[in-house]
């Protein structure tokens, strides 16, 4: 069925011809290949148990990402890759949806982490309400200007406060304040998405 010499003569002749891809297609092909490689290096990185192998995969992943970004930039400059910007309506629609999602997440966090301990839930809302009206305390003063990803060190610093908290007789009182701080911290983080 596939070997019909008479009908394939033309195709064989075409196969002997030198075929070159247009620049745009060639660039797209390499770009796709780099993206595929980045995905595979990511998987390899996640699966590697040996530290040396992991490090090598990670280095190659970073290099692949850099190459991909550079090629994309060239293609973009040459008008080979057009990016369609999202409309304001689409952005606002998603923003609204995730505002609700953020609110539900905040409720979830308040429900389980709010008091820091069981039985503290009733008091846990108090610091949050205060923080919405008052300027932030020194511990969280920078929170408003920090990007979302940078919020975790503040949380860990408040954890450090717990570890540094004093003697056993002070502990109950200290825990009250630190747990309030922690809930304020997590709530502040969640709150940033609601504004």
């Amino acid at each position, binding site marked *: 069925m596939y070997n019909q010499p008479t009908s394939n003569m033309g195709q064989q002749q075409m196969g002997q011809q030198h075929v070159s891809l247009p620049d745009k297609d060639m*660039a797209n092909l*390499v770009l796709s290949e780099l993206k*595929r490689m980045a995905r595979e290096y990511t998987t390899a990185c996640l*699966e590697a148990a*040996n530290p040396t192998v992991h490090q090598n995969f990670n280095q190659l992943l970073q290099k692949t990402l850099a190459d991909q970004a550079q*090629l994309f930039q*060239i293609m973009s*400059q040459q008008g080979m890759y057009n990016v369609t910007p999202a409309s304001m309506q689409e952005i606002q629609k998603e923003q609204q949806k995730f505002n609700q999602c953020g609110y539900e997440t905040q409720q979830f966090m308040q429900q389980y982490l709010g008091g820091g301990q069981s039985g503290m839930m009733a008091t846990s809302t108090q610091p949050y309400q205060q923080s919405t009206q008052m300027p932030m305390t020194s511990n969280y003063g920078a929170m408003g200007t920090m990007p979302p990803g940078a919020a975790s060190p503040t949380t860990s610093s408040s954890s450090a406060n717990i570890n540094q908290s004093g003697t056993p007789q002070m502990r109950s009182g200290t825990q009250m304040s630190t747990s309030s701080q922690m809930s304020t911290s997590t709530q502040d983080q969640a709150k940033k998405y609601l504004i």
Partner: protein
Amino acid sequence: MHTGSISTKELSYICDSLKNEETIVKLCVHGAVECQNPQLKQFFNHMSHERFQDFGQLMNVLDHHSQYS
């Protein structure tokens, strides 16, 4: 298993990666020769050499761990 040795899964990923690097090097050489756009030509030329070094890096990992097998 020796702590310095690699698993069969890791070996498999290294081999897949070597094959990927080989392919991208050949694609880049093809692009460097065939592309008309000078910027793309230069980029592919440079990247073919870079990626061949990455091929070598993966081969070094294999060489390093072959002594434990």
